[in-house]
């Protein structure tokens, strides 16, 4: 086991990890943050998307030990930490636009969409498609997801189109 320190969703944590365990393994199995999903394990589907040191990554392709000294933010960081039922405008927009069917890909979609909106305040639809190209949705809710991101950017979360 290797001791590592990281800031996880704003909180300093000192943990020990196996060198061959990924950041995804450790988040889900050791730290009980199961919002981040395990799916393809080859960096294609984006279900395991988290932010590492300010940039989104596929946590299935990052060794946990690589996060040593770094900052990790997961989907659990999006809602108000003092009131987990208080969803962020982006999360609320996903619900109100019907973007969530089975829901499995949604944590990754949210992390990618949140990252896009941090970089581009008012993305075009092609920019949203490109920003979310690393996140697959097997239910096929792409239009609703893009609508939700667009609505969030327009400050119109919660309004039906």
């Amino acid at each position, binding site marked *: 086991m*290797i001791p590592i320190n990281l800031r996880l969703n704003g909180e300093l944590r000192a943990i020990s990890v*196996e*060198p*061959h*365990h*990924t950041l995804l393994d450790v988040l889900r199995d050791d730290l009980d943050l199961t919002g981040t999903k395990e799916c393809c*394990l*080859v*960096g*294609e589907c*984006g279900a395991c*998307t988290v932010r590492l040191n300010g*940039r*989104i*990554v*596929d946590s*299935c*392709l*990052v*060794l946990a*030990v*690589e996060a040593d000294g770094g900052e990790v933010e997961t989907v659990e960081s999006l809602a108000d930490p003092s009131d987990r039922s208080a969803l962020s405008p982006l999360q609320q927009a996903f619900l109100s636009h019907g973007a969530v069917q089975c829901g499995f890909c949604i944590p990754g979609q949210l992390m*990618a969409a949140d*990252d*896009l909106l941090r970089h581009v305040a008012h993305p075009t639809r092609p920019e949203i*498609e*490109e*920003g979310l*190209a*690393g*996140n697959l949705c097997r239910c096929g809710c792409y239009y609703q997801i893009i609508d939700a991101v667009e609505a969030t950017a327009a400050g119109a979360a919660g309004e039906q189109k």
Partner: protein
Amino acid sequence: MRPFEYARPETLAQAIALLEHEGGRARVLAGGTDLVIRLRDGTYEPAVVIDIKRIPELAPAIAEVDGLVRISGGTVMTDVADSALMQRSFPALVDAARVVGSVQIRNRATLAGNICNASPAADTAPALLVYDATVVCFGPGEERRIPLDDFFVRSGVTALAPAELVTAIELPLPSGRLGAAFQRRTRRRGHDLASVTVAVAIHDRGEVRLAFGSLGPRPLLLVGRVGDEADLIARAVAAAAPSPTSMRAGPEYRLAMLGVLARRALDAASASLRGAAA
């Protein structure tokens, strides 16, 4: 994933010493977007994984020095795509870096890693070839500079010695005006490996450089002159050796698309050269 030891050298010398000591039992970890997949599927079963991201010389950096641009070994695709210097001087490479994987992959995958993996489909390889890239390698002996065209051997194999690391990629700043373009064919829009990649650079002195990938064991570079474009395309198609069994595209399709994309890249590079002249 099979267990392995993890080493995180803090100097180049430590990293090289580890590589020499461990020999073939070590694997180098930069971005990990290819390595971790191969660790998981058992393609690689190293005793030790050497993470080179804390070595100061490899920290992400794109800098202009003495008429060339030096891209450090730890520089990721997002850094390349977002760099104003790269956008100004090497737009075809920026276009290639922008289509590697997804945002998540580009935030992690290094340019040097794309070259070291030596995938025939490496998106950045054709652009680096037409821009005359040099690979800076550091090992037990002296620092070596290998022209990228000599660095690629075949799929997955490079001229890098066992205990060497790529510390940087250097691109000469064009001495005159240069028009360049990148073209790529995938099965679908978005995140996919390329069936054909083509890059072209046309120099105002009349030299035309055309490189392509995904059509044989390694990316290839051909050099011709303005006015001989049809001949250059014919030479490219003749030199290509697409896989007969790839699931991504059949050989006939790839050869046909090489001709189409080469023509488009030549036209776009030529238009960009004329635009630069205006």
